[in-house]
């Protein structure tokens, strides 16, 4: 029936028809919540009373003055350390697998596997690895005579964030690796061969020829890692609940608690907005830095 309509008319109809539902979904579940978040961040609200009172920048002031929030943010930095190591490992394994190697696809499949595993299942699985009494890691340590190292991993305020950081590395290293590998495979083999012909060693070729060709992807991977670090949530949420004594709180678990446990939605919104701004700042700095560097 539409066959007889002019294409200009059809085009207008189709744009409206095809975008109606997707835009409605986007508006309801993404745009509106984001704007409402900004609005709430200037309000004082307990989440259920019909009244919200104007708080101005009070919430933001408290976010920056609250020592507990900064302490939680410092825990995120532990994850950042592990994240940078994870990135380096990802690049290392990508370089290994980029050469002619028997069974390299099988290796790639294995190393990437943790990334697709159910996060809740992975969390509980590591509960059994790092349990102080019966955990397989401590059993392993004791069996080789390292009893003194077999501590309570989730119970120690000093160790807990490193254990969680290690689990993140275990789960996400494959993602970095696969992205690096794709980038490495797009480096034209002629340049590499030319460098080798000129007598460059394997290491020199990697450092001087291959890496400069994939700076964009290194940048992307670092960005993903930093964002992931800022947004760490489900591991401490499931495994430690932020304990012991808040030692494994992160910025986001603190935000969720502020909202749903302490019913301080204005403050929680201000924390969320702060996080989003931090993400955008990191992205801009990175863009700016790489642009200057490549010029």
């Amino acid at each position, binding site marked *: 029936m539409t066959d007889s309509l002019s294409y200009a008319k059809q085009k207008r109809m189709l744009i409206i028809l095809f975008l109606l539902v997707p835009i409605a979904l*986007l508006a309801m579940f993404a745009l509106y919540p984001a704007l409402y978040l900004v609005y709430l961040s200037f309000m004082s609200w307990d989440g259920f009373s019909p009244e919200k009172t104007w708080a101005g920048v009070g919430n933001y002031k408290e976010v920056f003055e609250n020592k507990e929030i900064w302490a939680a943010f410092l825990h995120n930095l532990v994850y950042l350390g592990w994240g940078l190591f994870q990135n380096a490992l990802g690049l290392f394994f990508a370089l290994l697998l980029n050469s002619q190697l028997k069974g390299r696809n099988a290796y790639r499949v294995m*190393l990437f596997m943790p990334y697709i595993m*159910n996060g809740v299942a992975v969390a509980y*699985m590591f509960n059994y690895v790092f349990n102080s009494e019966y955990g397989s890691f401590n059993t392993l340590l004791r069996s080789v005579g390292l009893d003194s190292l077999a501590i309570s991993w989730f119970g120690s305020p000093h160790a807990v964030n490193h254990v969680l950081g290690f689990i993140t590395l275990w789960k996400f290293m494959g993602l970095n690796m*696969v992205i690096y590998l794709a980038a490495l495979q797009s480096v034209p083999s002629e340049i590499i061969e030319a460098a080798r012909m000129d007598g460059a060693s394997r290491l020199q070729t990697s450092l001087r020829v291959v890496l400069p060709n994939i700076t964009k992807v290194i940048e992307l991977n670092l960005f993903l890692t930093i964002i992931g670090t800022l947004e760490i949530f489900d591991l401490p949420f499931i495994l430690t609940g932020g304990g012991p004594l808040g030692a494994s709180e992160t910025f986001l678990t603190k935000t969720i608690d502020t909202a749903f446990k302490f019913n301080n939605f204005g403050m929680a919104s201000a924390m969320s907005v702060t996080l989003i701004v931090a993400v955008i700042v990191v992205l801009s700095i990175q863009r700016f830095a790489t642009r200057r560097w490549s010029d």
Partner: protein
Amino acid sequence: MVGLTGAKFSPFSVVKHAILWIAVAMILFPPSILVLNAFKSKTEFSQTSVFKLPASFLNFDNFGTVMTRAHLDRAYLNTLTIIVVAVIGNVLLGTMVAYILGRFDFKLKKTVMGAYIAVSFVPTITTQVATFTVVHNLHLYNTIWASIVLHLGTSVLQLFIYLQFLHNIPRELDEAAMMEGASLFRIYRTIIFPLLTPATATIVIIKTIDIYNDMFIPYLYMPAQKLAVVSTSLMNFSSERSTEWELMSAAILMIMVPIVVIYLFFQRYVFAGIVNGAVK
């Protein structure tokens, strides 16, 4: 390069294999402990080391117990329902948006594209307060539709994958169909949608893994016991019997294995999705 590293007995490649084997061992260590202990009976578990092989790998008692006590049958069914409905809807909407944005010029095109990119910077966990009110007002709270609707929308990643594929479908095909008088809707249905199939395959796999692994949406919006999905049923089960390790091992494996199997069968599409979405 090929000749040097491809050499069969180069000591260099032995080192490479050794390093890779260590990495693989570290990845397989945690799940293999689960495999060793999921087949042990309660007494067997308490009397043997966690590294000991079970008396029999045919002792499926724990799996049966978990199935009934954690109501995993119901959880699988709920998860499957959400995946089927949400993925079908998501693919239809995703291809529609991509067709419009990829083929037509109109005033608000940049705005629409920009909106998709902008919201991708907002971590979904942070906006739950507002999302919660929307879900509540639509009367979707504590229904399976909460999860379906929240997974229905197109993400930037998905949009990029589709747009990139669409770019490679020659416009001449559209023009030839228009010469024969086909409507634009018909062009979408008979040319664009079928030719996007490789991208769709990738998106179906990635979306399936995403929804299966999602914990937060069902945890917040579907707290009713009978609506539990695989992730939340594991959380409920763990809070009740976290001390019965042999049962928990079986439960974790039952949650973990299906998606690993899907991954092993369809790894090509998983990698295509990750690479297309991230690198380009």
